[in-house]
C-alpha cells in the first residue's frame, strides 16, 4: 500500500469536514442556523448510506478499487463545487420560513436534502471502501482520516477569512480532486488526465463566476434591501460571519420609542451578520446631553443614578456605549466578540459613529462577555446586557444557542462585579405569550435570593413601555428620592412602572394597558416567593425556568409535554413560529433516526440476520458513534466559555480531538486488537469522561485568567489523553471484525456513520432537557456499551 493512499485519505477527509463547515456557513446565510443544521445532519447520513452500499456491493467495488477510488474522489470534488449552483435552482422556490405553511416546500426540502447528501455519500464511500479493502492497516488509515479532518477544521477557518462564501465550495472542491489524482492508476493515466483537467476546470469557472446566494426573503437583510435605494456599502467575510453594511434612506432604529418623542428618528446604516440584524451604525454627539435612548425604557438606570464606570456586554455597534458617554460615564468597557464587526466600526466606519470606539472613555474588549466577566476583576456602577429578543420575536430561532451571559451563574458574576451604587440593567421586548420577560424576571429574582439581600423587592425595579420592559437590579435598596424620580420619568414618557416599592395596581397600567392582568399575576408569582416561582415554572406552558451554565439555553421555551396542547390552542401551523429552533432539532432527530434504522437494517436482508458477530458489531460501533460525538459536543461547549470565542473554541477542540484521536488510532496498530485490550481502553475512556464531567467546569473556571497561549496549551493537554484513548476502539473493533467476520466491516462503518449523526441531535436534546453533565454521563454509558460488547466476547 503506497503512501499516496494516506495522503489521499487525509486530503479527502480534510475537504469533507471543511465542506461541512462551509455548507453550514452558507446555509446559515441563505436560511437560518437551525435549518442549516437540519439539512446538513441529513446530508451527513451519506456516511451511513455509504456503509449500507458497501455492505451490499463491497466485493464488486474492491475488485475495481484502482479505478473506483480516484473516480469517487474526483466525483466528490465535482459535486462539492457544483452543489451550490444546483441548489440555486432548488432554493429558487425553497424557503425554510414557509415550510410549515406551504406543503409544496416539503418537496423542495427533500430535493435539498438529496442535493447536499450526494457529496458526503460519495466521499464517505471512498473512505469506507479504503477501510474495507485495507482493514489490516486500519490503525494508520484511520489516523490519516482523523488527522486530515483535524487539519480540515483549522483550514476552513483560514478559508473563511480569505474567500467569499459563494466561492468557498469551488475552493474546497479542488482538494478531493487532488486526492483522486494521487491515486490514478498508471494504466488509466490517459483517460484520467482528461477527467482530472475537466474536474479542475469546473471549480475554476465557479470560483470566478460564483453562484449568487439567494437569501430567504424573510431574512432581515432581504427586507432592508427591498427598501428604496438600498445598497450594500461594505462587506467583510470571516469565520465571525458574513458582515454587510446596508444603507437606505428609510432605515431607522429607535426601539420602543416613547410617544412623547417629537423629533425626527434619524436614518441609519445597519450592519447585518449572515443576513441577520447585528446593529445600527449610530452617530452621536459629545456635546449632547440627551440621546434618543433617553426616550426609551433603557434610560431607567440613568434616571436612578449617574453611573461613572459602565460595562456594556455584547456591545454590538455601540448604541448603549454612546448612550453611557452622553449620560456622563467616565469609563465604558465595551465587550463584543465579533472582532470583524468591531474592527470595521473602529476603522472604516469610524466617521459614521464619531470614532466611538476610539473615545478616551471607551475600553474595547473583543471577547465573549461571560468569559470576560470571569477573567475580569474590575467593579462597575452599571452593567448593561443586550436587549433580549427582537421586535416581534425570533420564534425561537436562537433556542439552541448557548447564551452563557444569561445564565444564573452569569448574573451572580455580574452582581459580584457591582460597586455599592451598582446596577445591572436588562431590557426585553414584550412577547406574547410571555416568555422572555418572565424568564428574565425569574433569573433576576434567583440572583437576589442567592445574595444576602434582606428584602429583594427593594432591589428590583422595572419599567414598561408600549413594547419593552427594562429591569434594573440594584445593589443597594432603592431610596424614596429615586422612587420619586422613576415615577416622574415614567409619567413624562407615557411608561408604566412594573416593579417599584409601594406600587399600586392602577399605576402599573396607566398608559400602556394590557388586555387583562394575567401578565402581572405571573410576574408577581415569580417575585412573591421561591415556592410560587417553582410552581409557575412547572405549570406554565413554556419553559421559563432560569438558564444555568449546565443548561445555557435561555431562549429555549418549548416543553415537549405541552406541544399537543399548544398545537390545539394556537394551531398546528402557528406553533412552529412560536418555538421553531428546538422543534427543528426534534424533527431532525426523528428524521435521521428513522433513516438510520433503515440504513442499518437494510444490509441484513442481504448478509443475513443471525450470528457471526452481528450483535457485537451493532453494540460496539453504536457505542462509539454515540459516545465520541457526545464528548466532542460537550467539550466544544465548555471551551467556548474558556476561550471566549465560539468559532475558535470549536476549531481548537475539534482539531485537537481529531488529531489526538488520530494519534491513538496510529498507536493502536501496535496492539494486538483483542477484546480484552478494547475492554481496558474503553474502561479508561469511561473513567476520563466521568472525571471530565465532574471536574472540567471547575478546572476551566480556575484557569480562565491564564494568558491565551497558556490556555491553548493547557486545553490541548486536557483534551489529549481522553482523545488519545478514544481514537483506539474504532480501528481495533474493525480489525477484530475483519478477523471474525469480514463481511461485517462495511456494515460497521455504516453503523458508526449513522450513530454519529444521530448523536449530535440527541446530545443537543439531552443538553437542553437535562444539562451537559448528563450528556457526559450518557457518553460514559455509550462507551460502557462498547466495553460490555467486548467483555462478552473476551
Amino acid at each position, binding site marked *: 500500500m503506497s503512501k499516496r493512499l494516506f495522503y489521499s485519505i487525509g486530503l479527502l477527509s480534510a475537504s469533507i469536514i471543511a465542506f461541512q463547515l462551509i455548507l453550514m456557513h452558507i446555509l446559515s446565510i441563505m436560511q437560518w442556523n437551525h435549518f442549516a443544521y437540519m439539512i446538513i445532519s441529513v446530508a451527513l447520513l451519506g456516511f451511513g448510506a455509504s456503509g449500507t452500499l458497501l455492505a451490499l456491493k463491497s466485493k464488486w467495488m474492491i475488485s475495481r478499487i484502482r479505478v473506483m477510488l480516484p473516480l469517487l474522489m474526483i466525483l466528490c470534488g465535482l459535486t462539492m463545487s457544483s452543489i451550490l449552483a444546483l441548489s440555486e435552482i432548488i432554493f429558487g422556490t425553497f424557503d425554510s*420560513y*414557509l415550510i*410549515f*405553511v*406551504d406543503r409544496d416546500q416539503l418537496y423542495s426540502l427533500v430535493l435539498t436534502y438529496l442535493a447536499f447528501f450526494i457529496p458526503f455519500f460519495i466521499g464517505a464511500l471512498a473512505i469506507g471502501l479504503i477501510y474495507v479493502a485495507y482493514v489490516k492497516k486500519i490503525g494508520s488509515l484511520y489516523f490519516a482520516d482523523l488527522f486530515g479532518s483535524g487539519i480540515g477544521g483549522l483550514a476552513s477557518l483560514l478559508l473563511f477569512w480569505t474567500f467569499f462564501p459563494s466561492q468557498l465550495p469551488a475552493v474546497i472542491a479542488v482538494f478531493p480532486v487532488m486526492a483522486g489524482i494521487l491515486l490514478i492508476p498508471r494504466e488509466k493515466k490517459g483517460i484520467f488526465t482528461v477527467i482530472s483537467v475537466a474536474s479542475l476546470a469546473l471549480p475554476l469557472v465557479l470560483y470566478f463566476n460564483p453562484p449568487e446566494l439567494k437569501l*430567504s*426573503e*424573510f*431574512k432581515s437583510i*432581504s*427586507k432592508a434591501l*427591498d*427598501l*428604496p435605494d438600498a445598497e450594500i456599502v461594505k462587506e467583510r467575510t470571516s469565520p465571525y460571519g458574513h458582515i454587510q453594511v446596508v444603507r437606505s*434612506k*428609510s432605515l*431607522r*432604529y*429607535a*426601539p*420602543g*420609542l416613547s*410617544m*412623547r*418623542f*417629537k*423629533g*425626527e*428618528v434619524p436614518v441609519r446604516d445597519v450592519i447585518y451578520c449572515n443576513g441577520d440584524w447585528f446593529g445600527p451604525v449610530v452617530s452621536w454627539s459629545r456635546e449632547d446631553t440627551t440621546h434618543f435612548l433617553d426616550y426609551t425604557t433603557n434610560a431607567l438606570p440613568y434616571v436612578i443614578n449617574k453611573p461613572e464606570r459602565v460595562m456594556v456586554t455584547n456591545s454590538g455597534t455601540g448604541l448603549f456605549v454612546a448612550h453611557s458617554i452622553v449620560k456622563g460615564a467616565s469609563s465604558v468597557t465595551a465587550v463584543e466578540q465579533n472582532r470583524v464587526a468591531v474592527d470595521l466600526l473602529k476603522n472604516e466606519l469610524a466617521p459614521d459613529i464619531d470614532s466611538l470606539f476610539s473615545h478616551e472613555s471607551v475600553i474595547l474588549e473583543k471577547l465573549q462577555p461571560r468569559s470576560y466577566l470571569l477573567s475580569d476583576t474590575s467593579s462597575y456602577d452599571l452593567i448593561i446586557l443586550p436587549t433580549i429578543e427582537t*421586535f*416581534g*420575536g425570533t*420564534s425561537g430561532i436562537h433556542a439552541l444557542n448557548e447564551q452563557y451571559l444569561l445564565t444564573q451563574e452569569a448574573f451572580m458574576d455580574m452582581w459580584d462585579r457591582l460597586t455599592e451604587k451598582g446596577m445591572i440593567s436588562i431590557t426585553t421586548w*414584550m412577547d*406574547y*405569550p410571555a416568555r422572555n420577560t418572565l424568564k428574565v424576571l425569574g433569573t433576576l429574582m434567583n440572583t437576589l435570593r442567592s445574595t444576602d439581600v434582606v428584602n429583594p423587592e427593594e432591589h428590583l425595579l422595572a419599567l414598561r413601555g*408600549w*413594547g419593552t420592559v427594562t429591569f434594573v437590579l440594584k445593589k443597594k435598596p432603592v431610596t424614596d428620592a429615586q422612587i420619586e424620580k422613576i415615577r416622574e420619568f415614567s409619567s413624562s414618557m*407615557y411608561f408604566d412602572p412594573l416593579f417599584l416599592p409601594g406600587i399600586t395596581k392602577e399605576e402599573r397600567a*396607566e*398608559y*400602556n*394597558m*394590557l*388586555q*387583562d392582568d*394575567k401578565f402581572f399575576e405571573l410576574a408577581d408569582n415569580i417575585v412573591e416567593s421561591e415556592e410560587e416561582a417553582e410552581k409557575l415554572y412547572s405549570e406554565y406552558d413554556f419553559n421559563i425556568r432560569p438558564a444555568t451554565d449546565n443548561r445555557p439555553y435561555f431562549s429555549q421555551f418549548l416543553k415537549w409535554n405541552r406541544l399537543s396542547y399548544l398545537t*390545539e*390552542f*394556537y*394551531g398546528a*401551523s*402557528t406553533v412552529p*413560529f*412560536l418555538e421553531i429552533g428546538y422543534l427543528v432539532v426534534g424533527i431532525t432527530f426523528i428524521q435521521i433516526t428513522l433513516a438510520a434504522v433503515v440504513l442499518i437494517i437494510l444490509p441484513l436482508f442481504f448478509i443475513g440476520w443471525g450470528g457471526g458477530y452481528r450483535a457485537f458489531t451493532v453494540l460496539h460501533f453504536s457505542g462509539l458513534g454515540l459516545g465520541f460525538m457526545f464528548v466532542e459536543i460537550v467539550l466544544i461547549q465548555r471551551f467556548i466559555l474558556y476561550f471566549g470565542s465560539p468559532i475558535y473554541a470549536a476549531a481548537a477542540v475539534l482539531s485537537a480531538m481529531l488529531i489526538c484521536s488520530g494519534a491513538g488510532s496510529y498507536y493502536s496498530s501496535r496492539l494486538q486488537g483483542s477484546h480484552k485490550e478494547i475492554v481496558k481502553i474503553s474502561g479508561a475512556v469511561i473513567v476520563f469522561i466521568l472525571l471530565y464531567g465532574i471536574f472540567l467546569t471547575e478546572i476551566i473556571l480556575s484557569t480562565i485568567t491564564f494568558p491565551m497561549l497558556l490556555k491553548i496549551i493547557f486545553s490541548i493537554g486536557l483534551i489529549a489523553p481522553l482523545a488519545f484513548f478514544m481514537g483506539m476502539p474504532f480501528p481495533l473493533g474493525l480489525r477484530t471484525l475483519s478477523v471474525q467476520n469480514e463481511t461485517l466491516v462495511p456494515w460497521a462503518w455504516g453503523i458508526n456513520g449513522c450513530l454519529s449523526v444521530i448523536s449530535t441531535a440527541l446530545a443537543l436534546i439531552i443538553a437542553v432537557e437535562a444539562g451537559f453533565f448528563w450528556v457526559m454521563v450518557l457518553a460514559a454509558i455509550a462507551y460502557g456499551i462498547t466495553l460490555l460488547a467486548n467483555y462478552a466476547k473476551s
Partner: protein
Amino acid sequence: MKKPYLIIPAALLILSAVSVFNVQAQDYRSQRETMVRTQIRARGINHGPTIKAMRNVERHLFVPAVRRNRAYEDNPLPIGHGQTISQPFIVAYMTQLVNPGAGDKVLEIGTGSGYQAAILAEIVDEVYTIEIIAELGESAQKLLKELNYDNLEVKIGDGYYGWKEHAPFDAIVVTAAAEYIPPPLVEQLKDGGKMVIPVGSPFMVQNLMLVEKKGERITTRSIMPVTFVPFTRKE
C-alpha cells in the same frame, strides 16, 4: 362556407370557459361565506360594516395566483418581498378595533396586497394607503383601480412621514409593524383617533396594539387575542 363549422367549437369553448369561471366564482363566494362564518363571526367579530366588507371583498384576487386556492384558509399567505396578506381574522380584527364608519378618513401604512385597504374602502369615505416597496405598491394600485375603489389612493413612499396633505385621520392602520411608532403618525392622528399596529412575525401569534389619542394624552392597549379567543381551527 367553412366558417359556421368553426363557430360551433369556438362557442362551445367560450361557453365552457364561462361555465368554469362561473363555477370558480361561485366556489370562491361560498368559501368567502364560510370564512366569514367560521373565522370571523364565530370568533367574536360583530362590527356590521367589517363583516359586510369581509363578505364583499374578493380576497382571492389579492393572493398570488399560485396560492389562490388557499386564499380563504385560516392563515396568512406570502405575497413576495417577505410580506404577507394577513390571516382573514387579523384583517377583520384590526378593522373592528379602529371602529371605522361612513364619513371617516383612514390612513394605512403598508399597502402590501391591498386587501386591508379594500376592506377599509368598503366602509369609510376616504382611504389613503402608503407602500414602500414599489413593486407591491404598483401591483396593489393596479388591482384596486380595476376593482373601482375610487375612494382610495395609493402612494409609493416611506410610511414614516404619513400623508400630511390629507391629515388628520380618524384612524391609522399600520399593517407592517415597526420597532417604533413614527412621531409624524401620532401627530397626524385626530384628537380621539385610533391607531392599530400588529406586533409579531407574520406567521406568529400576533399581538395587536391599539393607540388612542385624547388631547395630549396618548395611551396604548395591548390586545392579546390568544388569551380570550384562540384563532385556530378547533372545530
